């Protein structure tokens, strides 16, 4: 498996552990938005949303562009892609281990099998 920490995924997974932050990401996946626009559907203060945005920003999940008084947030998909890739590699790791396990067990079955015996004898 490829190194998890080297990719800085801790921050990514921590950032998306929060349901409000995930909702913010989904919102930004549709299109970029200002903090006020992001905050609109949430029952939390603008200040709270601003803190969530900061966490997402630090994790590299979003970028923020300051245009006068407007802060426009944009989804940065690279970190998400790295995290997804890591999950896929985890699956891949176990799949290939299962391939090896299958080969190993086939060998075991050959050596353990009594002459002329059926598999049932090994149970």
């Amino acid at each position: 498996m490829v190194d998890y920490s080297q990719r800085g995924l801790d921050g990514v997974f921590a950032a998306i552990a929060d349901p409000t932050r995930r909702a913010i990401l989904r919102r930004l996946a549709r299109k970029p938005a200002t903090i006020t626009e992001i905050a609109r559907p949430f029952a939390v203060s603008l200040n709270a949303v601003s803190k969530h945005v900061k966490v997402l920003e630090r994790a590299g999940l979003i970028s923020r562009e300051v245009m006068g008084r407007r802060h426009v947030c944009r989804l940065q998909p690279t970190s998400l892609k790295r995290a997804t890739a890591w999950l896929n590699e985890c699956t891949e790791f176990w799949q290939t281990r299962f391939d090896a396990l299958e080969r190993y067990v086939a060998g075991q079955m050959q050596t353990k099998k009594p002459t002329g015996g059926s598999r049932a004898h090994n149970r």
Partner: protein
Amino acid sequence: MHTTDDPNRVVVRRRIPAPREVLFEAWTDAEGFRQWMCPGDVVSNEAILDVRVGGSFRILMKSKTAEYEHTGVYKIVDPPSKLVFTWTAKATGDTPTLVTVEFFAAGEETEIVLTHEKFTDPEVSKRYRGGWGQILEKLSIYQAKKVQQ
């Protein structure tokens, strides 16, 4: 690619033509385990397994260029049906994760279901509770589509 209903986990299934006892032994016998728990470029592998609840294991995989240490503690040892252990490696960010291996009899074969859950540390799991896997995938798919458009 990771197929799971629960986005917190990676679940891998495999049906293998061998009885559960043989497969359980392959997971718990150090010599056998050492032989097959040997990914791609790994040229030698040492395994010390103390297979009992609370017992620990250490696997040291060596490739030509690097060493990968995997350690953990057995949580459930229920032959031949279930094995649960923590799994800590560089690949998990040196954070303990939880691996559950279940062995289901399927006629003369065995279906193995492996569940790899991340962030089992109670402190960490509190923060990580949430469906990040699926969400990540959905978001990246969405992004990929957007890029194509």
